[in-house]
């Protein structure tokens, strides 16, 4: 379970500071799919960054199964990401020097896990990219790169998958395809999916949807499908 309490975050802009998150509270059960929606600059990505433990909030806490990750040091946070979190970026961020297979196997190899390549290949096959396993990112289309990124985020069966506008850099048709794959693979792994999106249609496919406005998070009952 993920529990966020009274989360505050601001960024300095010249002499003043802008409050991006102003007391965010949220509880997410294991295996839930959650959409975060809101206008540009509303703090969606900031929330995701904090959930990934990549930045520290000004105040408040984020608990993963009762462990407050805001209290952890850099190495412990890295370990949390390595073992429990998968991230899907809008711009894919694959490692250009590794093949698709190498990229997907990366989280397991970082963790020193067994059968990294075999597990990665299986997941790539599930993403429809078995025949592209030995291609480098530069040899893949945008959609294919994002499928590799999704496989990389799920290969180590994380508890939580954070997805930041996963279709933001893709055309509509490819985007829809990617979302299908993301939901399908996530459902198979049973991970909690937290996704930032602009797209109401995509948000509707999540069990719950939250809207970020003026630094506050409000659950949007209309957008979410019933659990």
């Amino acid at each position: 379970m993920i529990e966020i309490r009274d989360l505050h975050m601001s960024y300095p802009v010249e002499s003043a500071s802008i409050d991006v998150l102003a007391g965010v509270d949220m509880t997410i059960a294991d295996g839930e799919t959650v959409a975060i929606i809101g206008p540009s600059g509303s703090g969606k990505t900031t929330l995701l960054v904090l959930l990934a433990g990549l930045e520290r909030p000004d105040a408040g806490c984020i608990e993963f199964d009762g462990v407050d990750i805001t209290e952890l040091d850099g190495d412990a946070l890295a370990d949390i990401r390595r073992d429990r979190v998968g991230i899907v970026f809008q711009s894919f961020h694959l490692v250009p020097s590794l093949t698709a297979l190498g990229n997907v196997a990366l989280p397991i190899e970082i963790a020193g896990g067994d059968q990294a390549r075999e597990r990665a290949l299986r997941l790539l096959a599930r993403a429809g990219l078995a025949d592209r396993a030995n291609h480098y990112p530069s040899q893949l289309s945008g959609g294919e790169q994002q499928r590799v990124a999704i496989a990389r985020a799920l290969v180590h069966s994380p508890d939580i998958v954070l997805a930041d506008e996963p279709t933001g850099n893709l055309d509509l048709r490819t985007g829809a395809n990617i979302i299908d794959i993301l939901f399908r693979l996530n459902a198979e792994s049973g991970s909690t999916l937290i996704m930032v999106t602009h797209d109401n249609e995509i948000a509707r496919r999540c069990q719950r949807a939250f809207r970020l406005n003026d630094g506050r998070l409000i659950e949007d009952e209309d957008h979410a499908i019933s659990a």
Partner: protein
Amino acid sequence: MRFLLDFAWQDLRASGRSLWVFCACVFLGVALVAATGGLYRLINQGLLADTRQLLGGDVEVDADEPLPETVMDWMRERGDVSVVMELDTMLGTDAGDFLRVELQAMDAAYPLYGKLVLQPEMTLGEATGFADGHWGIALDPVLTENLGLTVGDEVYVGSLAMRVRALVLQQPDRALNAEWRGAPVLLSDAALRETGLVQAGSVVDYDYRVRTSLPTNDWRRQFYAAFPGEAWEVRSFESRGRRIAERLDQLASGLLIIGFSTLFIGGLGVFNSIQAYLQSKLKTIATLRALGLRRRRLAAIYLLEVGIMSGASSLAGALIGGGLALAGAATVAAELPMVTAFGSLPVPVLIAAAFGLLTAYAFAFPAIGRALTVDPATLFRGTAAESAHRPARWWLASLACGTIIIALVLLVLPDTLFGAGFVLTVGLLLLLLDLVVRGIRGGAKRLDDHPALTRRFDLRLALANLHRPGTPLRATLLSLGSALTLLVACAMVVTSLVRTINETVPEESPALVLYDIIGDQLDSVAAALQQLPGVVRLDTTPLVRSRIVAVNGQATSELGHLNRAQRRDASQDNYDLSYSANNIDDVTLFAGEWWDDPVEDVARLAIEDREAEQLGLQLGDLVTFGIAGHRLETRIEAIFSQRGVQTRFWFEGIVSDGALDGLVHRHVGAAYMDDAVAIDAQRRIGQIAPNVITVRTATLLATARDILGKAVAGLAVVAGVSLLASVLVLISVMAAGRSRQIYDATVLHSLGTRMAAIRRSLLLEYALLALITTTFAVLLGSAIALPLLSMRLKLPTDDLLLVGLTTAAVVSGVSLHLGARYLLRRLQVWPAILLRGAN
């Protein structure tokens, strides 16, 4: 660890050729250090492996006359004795050629150490004995090559016709400077006496070599105690080894410093190329961190990459450098009596490789440290960028590497003082450079708002590029600036040497220089020359060999202001004295005045500046010379300076006329005539006075040109390698700044700036860099070359600033222009594509 290594390897493989500058810089520096260090070690070990062989015995007693029988008996009681008589003279051929040689007459006990190898194989006695109506000689192969002689030919030494019976393939005690001082000619003692060359006034050296089981210091002490007050010099194989080692150390230190300088310049290339490489890896670094890779393990990946690249480059450089050292040692071994000790090569080669690794890490640590500051959160926001924070730990690591490098430099350089000077110079250079860079940046910033530049957008842009953060100014100045400094200094020295040889010497020099004219030969030599057509003038002057026995009444061996080695040199060195009449060697006074009045109680002395400096002598000091058992009191009235390479006689002292009367046995002379006549004159003198050594200026010039050619080639290689390293750095600077420049240009273009204006600003930026680099190099290069030329080499320095300026301007202009053109070509890409690429 396996994963980290795999990842590092894959990452490197995917990087293609982007890191070739990194590898080339490390390779070049390591190869030079390995080559120079390896060559030094090989020669040092090879030459000094057995200095007993080089000296010819454990100890050697040098005398200028045969030692009395009592002394010989004393020596024979304490070991085996072998005597070698040495005498410089001319060797003539049937073709009428004459060449200066060193006659060596040795007894049957020679050599006490090592082996003399003759071709065809025979004993020394067989080679130099009397047979078929002729005495035999064994010749150094240099002579057979220069004079076109073969075994069986007839040659003339003094008044004797002799037969070449053998070539000397290996002579254990062959002098290291035999090539230019006079190649050895081996003959028997009896034959030498028959040549008629040994007579009053002849300069014959008697070297008594002794093989003894006594410690050499004890032997020497006992010898001096048994024969006090004698002018015989005792040298041990250790002191001979020490002297050779000192000379080698100085030479090797100079060469190694060139290697270290190249490695240092190359280090800047390492820094720039690794920085550019890591810039391209920022997203990967951020991604890996976002995927949960700890910072320490991430650092390990890039440290491994640096290790793999610098290790491979260092290994390749060390192997190539080691190969060059072996090739160099083989060349030297053909000229010098040394055995190449291959076992001594691995250490300097491994040290060179260690230098490569350390330099790479020293320059790579800060770049890696900065790259690792990239915030993975930026991946969610589009672009990955380093933080402005400079991680202290990485700088400390870099500093630690730098400290180890400095310690190693001081340890490795044979001359520690030289090494300390090098480290200090580099430190001062960096400090000076920093001040210059700050000054230029400040000036450029101030000009930014200058009203005169309001309408000169391109110039303002160029000036802005000089003072913006991350400007390539420092790296360009340090790399191209230091290489150009070396190039300017080399160009000035070479130009001055070439001018001196090509212009000054032929006009001012006599066609023939004569040495060792014995007193009663003066008239006959003069008459022989006067009979030849075209002989314009003959100047002669006495030459008296002396030693300094006291300064201001204090014995030379007790002079308190000199150290032990200086006192030893001062009391054992020979000083050639002459008269001031004619000023035959055209020396220049720079302190005191020539005298007009005749000798009073104390003779007047003009002393050579370097001798005065070494002994700490000043005007008014009293110097007592010892000449063949007589003492000559002199007072320093003037200090003169030799004319460098134009000097023919190398007098150490010139005394007032008449002071040497009664002590003069030899004269030197200079004859002015056409060179064609000089050949005849040389033959004529060879016939009537075979002991007189004659050297044609044309021959001297040919030798000087040969030496000069080698010096020019050597300097060109030094400057070329340094320039290559700096061009590599320049490439790395451009590679590091290229993406920024293309991005800036694209943005400017998309905002409406014409491409022509962008190109102009880029050209202006590089023109400003060229101007600054040229000024820097000319000032520093002149500061090195001009004092060296005027004070040390005594060569003219007129118009050399123009030479330096032209060299620096052309090279920096061409290098930077090529760089600018390369960037301009890249800027011709369609901006829309660049914009997409930039994002």
